[in-house]
């Protein structure tokens, strides 16, 4: 009876499918018919991600980027990117009657008049500082675990470009309020541009629309800061994430984990909840930071005037190593034919991108040395790639040495040292410290490899002391569980590249190019004897554990 009556009701609408159970399903049906969300959701919602805290570093980058965009949009509603001069008369009394630019006046206005403006400004700036720091740590995580290997080289480059663009967008944002600090930063940049041989002055006039500072620079920087670079970054970010989905996430070695699977938990519901929650935690921490600590107090710096400068005029931390390069570089100059080549600025200008490119190019160099064309989805433990880890640590140490050169005045005043001594240290340290760090890190990794080998072959120390009948005391070692044995021995070890025999089968001397010879030499220094500890084989383990007494 009931079926007949419902059938009678359904006859009126010419529906071809079952009635949706509720409104949500109806809405989903509607969208599926137009966007195809069911198949998208089916393939992606249950996507598996492995669980490890270091895989969440990229999430910090993503969330701070979102926070920066949200707060940045709010700031553009009130910021006036103009160098037009006004007499400031606002609620910050100590600047009343001072001639300032509209950019500066509107930044003060955001800070003191706009509701929530100062908090939003500080969230924007703190999030930017944390964003670049998180990208840096995320990049080094990828570096040290070898997650940049095939198929992820292009994603590595995308990530590097995001970092590089983040540097510049941060610097541009710092330049916009036209306060004394940002003006000094722009002046620094002008000096760097002027140091470019031949075309420096033309470039500078093109960028500033005439003499420094002119009136064009703030509107131009504004467009680049809010439109051009964020647009490119957003595109790169989406591509970066699509590639993460496409490649699937890397995972640590362990039982049941292979190059062909991903062991973890599904996006829906586990990571939806975790990532969503983590977003709010990140936002909360950044907001709390912004509520308790001031960042870039433009009102205290005062408006920019080219005849004024303050000490402690540094860029935000990520550009600090460029500042360090300039500060420690001797002021060399070459004068010839009525022209000056300012090496004191030009050499740092060349070194600045080279330092960054050095880390970006490493994956390609390593791949050229190993010649490995296979895909890698299992991560390396840093200790199992001692040369790579050593190089990464050396690069970080170079970055830090240069960074300390950029803050040499604060180190001098706060640790009661001589500014000159710090500068000399940084000059020498830029060459010496990375080399020392490389060797220490490499030895350290080799030591850890030996320890792993020891643990696999001899088990772990139980702390139980046993006295043998003849009086000898020994500590009982316990075998590691099977899973741990697998984890510690699953990494593969490359053989150093063998040069072909000097003569071929006909006794004719074989020609080996310089490139191949270099490659073999580098391969030897990475995987040769003494540069990695041969991992224990199953036979060794068998031999030792088969019960030939204790050791």
């Amino acid at each position, binding site marked *: 009876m009931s079926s007949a009556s419902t059938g009678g009701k359904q006859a009126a609408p010419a529906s071809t499918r079952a009635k949706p159970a509720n409104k949500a399903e109806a809405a989903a049906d509607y969208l599926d018919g137009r966007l195809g969300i069911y198949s998208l959701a089916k393939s992606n919602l249950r996507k598996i991600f492995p*669980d*490890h*805290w*270091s*895989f*969440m570093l990229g*999430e910090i980058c993503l969330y701070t980027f979102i926070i920066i965009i949200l707060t940045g949009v709010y700031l553009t509603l009130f910021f006036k990117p103009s160098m037009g001069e006004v007499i400031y008369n606002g609620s910050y*009394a*100590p*600047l*009343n*009657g001072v001639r300032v630019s509209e950019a500066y006046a509107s930044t003060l206005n955001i*800070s*003191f008049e706009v509701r929530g403006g100062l908090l939003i400004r*500080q969230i924007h700036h703190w999030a930017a*500082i*944390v964003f670049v*720091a*998180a990208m840096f*740590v995320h990049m080094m995580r990828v570096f040290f675990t070898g997650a940049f290997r095939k198929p992820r080289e292009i994603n590595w480059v995308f990530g590097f470009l995001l970092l590089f663009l983040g540097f510049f967008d941060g610097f541009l944002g710092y330049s916009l309020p036209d306060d004394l*600090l940002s003006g000094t930063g722009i002046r620094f940049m002008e000096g760097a541009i002027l140091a470019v041989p031949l075309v420096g002055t033309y470039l500078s006039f093109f960028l500033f629309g005439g003499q420094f500072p002119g009136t064009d620079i703030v509107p131009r920087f504004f467009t680049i800061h809010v439109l051009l670079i964020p647009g490119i970054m957003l595109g790169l970010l989406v591509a970066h994430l699509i590639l993460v989905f496409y490649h699937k996430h890397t995972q640590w070695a362990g039982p049941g984990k292979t190059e062909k699977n991903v062991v973890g*938990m599904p996006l829906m519901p*586990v990571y939806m909840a975790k990532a969503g929650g*983590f977003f709010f*935690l*990140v936002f909360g*921490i*950044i907001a709390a*930071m*912004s*509520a*308790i*600590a*001031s*960042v*870039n*107090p433009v*009102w*205290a*710096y*005062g408006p920019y*005037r080219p*005849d*004024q*400068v*303050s*000490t*402690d005029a*540094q*860029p935000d*931390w990520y550009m*600090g190593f460029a500042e360090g390069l300039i500060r420690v570089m001797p002021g060399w100059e070459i004068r010839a034919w009525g022209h000056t080549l300012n090496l004191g600025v030009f050499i740092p200008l060349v070194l600045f991108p080279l330092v960054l490119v050095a880390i970006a190019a490493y994956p390609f160099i390593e791949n050229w040395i190993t010649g490995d064309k296979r895909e890698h989805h299992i991560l390396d433990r840093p200790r199992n790639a001692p040369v790579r880890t050593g190089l990464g640590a050396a690069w970080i140490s170079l970055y830090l040495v240069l960074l300390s050169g*950029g803050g040499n*005045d*604060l180190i*001098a*005043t706060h640790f009661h040292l*001589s*500014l*000159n001594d710090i500068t000399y240290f940084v000059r020498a340290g830029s060459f010496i410290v990375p080399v020392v760090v490389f060797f220490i890190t490499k030895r350290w990794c080799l030591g850890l490899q030996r320890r792993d080998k020891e643990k696999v072959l001899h088990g772990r120390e139980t702390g139980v002391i046993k006295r043998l009948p003849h009086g000898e005391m020994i500590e009982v070692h316990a075998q590691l569980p099977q899973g741990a044995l697998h984890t510690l021995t699953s990494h593969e070890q490359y053989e150093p590249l063998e040069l072909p025999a000097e003569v071929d089968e006909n006794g004719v001397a074989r020609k080996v190019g310089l490139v191949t010879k270099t490659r073999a030499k580098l391969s030897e220094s990475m995987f040769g004897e003494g540069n990695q500890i041969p991992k224990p084989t199953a036979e060794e383990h068998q031999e030792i554990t088969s019960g030939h007494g204790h050791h």
Partner: protein
Amino acid sequence: MKKLSARRRHPLAALVVLLFALAATGGLYGMFAPAEAAKADSSAQSLQIDEGKRLFAVGCSSCHGLNGQGSSTGPSLVGVGSAAVDFQVGTGRMPAQQPGAQVLKKPNIYSQDDIDAMAAFVASLGPGPVTPTKDQYTSTETDAISKGGELFRTNCSQCHNFAGAGGALTQGKFAPSLENVDPKHIYEAMQTGPQNMPSFPDSTMPEKQKQEIVAFVRYQANEAPNPGGLSLGSLGPVTEGLFGWIFGLGVLIAIAIWVAAHTTKAKKS
């Protein structure tokens, strides 16, 4: 008169005339000279200078010499004026604790009377900047802080930092923080240019401008509220970067570790 006239060419005649002239001049001076000035001199000021000289001999002379003429370890104080003494001793920099790149501030052990006495003694060695009075370093203008801010950023902030937090100079020398510095001492420092600081005499920076700078420094380093929260030392992006790494990223990584450690378990482990 003939007798006198006859002896006018006597060898001692000139001497006698000279004696008479001296006696007459002295006598006339004694009659007309203001007697009070001589009296005051013998009571207050000269007593103060004597007292100053005594204190100077104990606390300062080992480097600057008994008469402030200077030695290999301390410069001559002739012509530095009372303002220099009031600044150096009043801020505790002098007597110096130890030689070094720069003489450091320390608690002052002299009373203001002692300092004034030493200042009077040093001022008596040669003319120099005089210790300012309160109305000299106090500005009554309403826009003094904003005008002083512009002057400060033009003349002072390249060493003392935009907020007066201080900064580094070469070879371990430094521009000190201006926080909690007495307005009189700020004024005197500008007048006299102590240690590595250039001096800003009234001929290059009029008294009114110095007053404005004092007003700005007092506001910036002491009274100014920080609307943004903790100032992190007002030291610019270096401390901000450090704070961002430690309290921003550091806390976020700690949270990431916490989130990753608390995960759903497919089975009981």
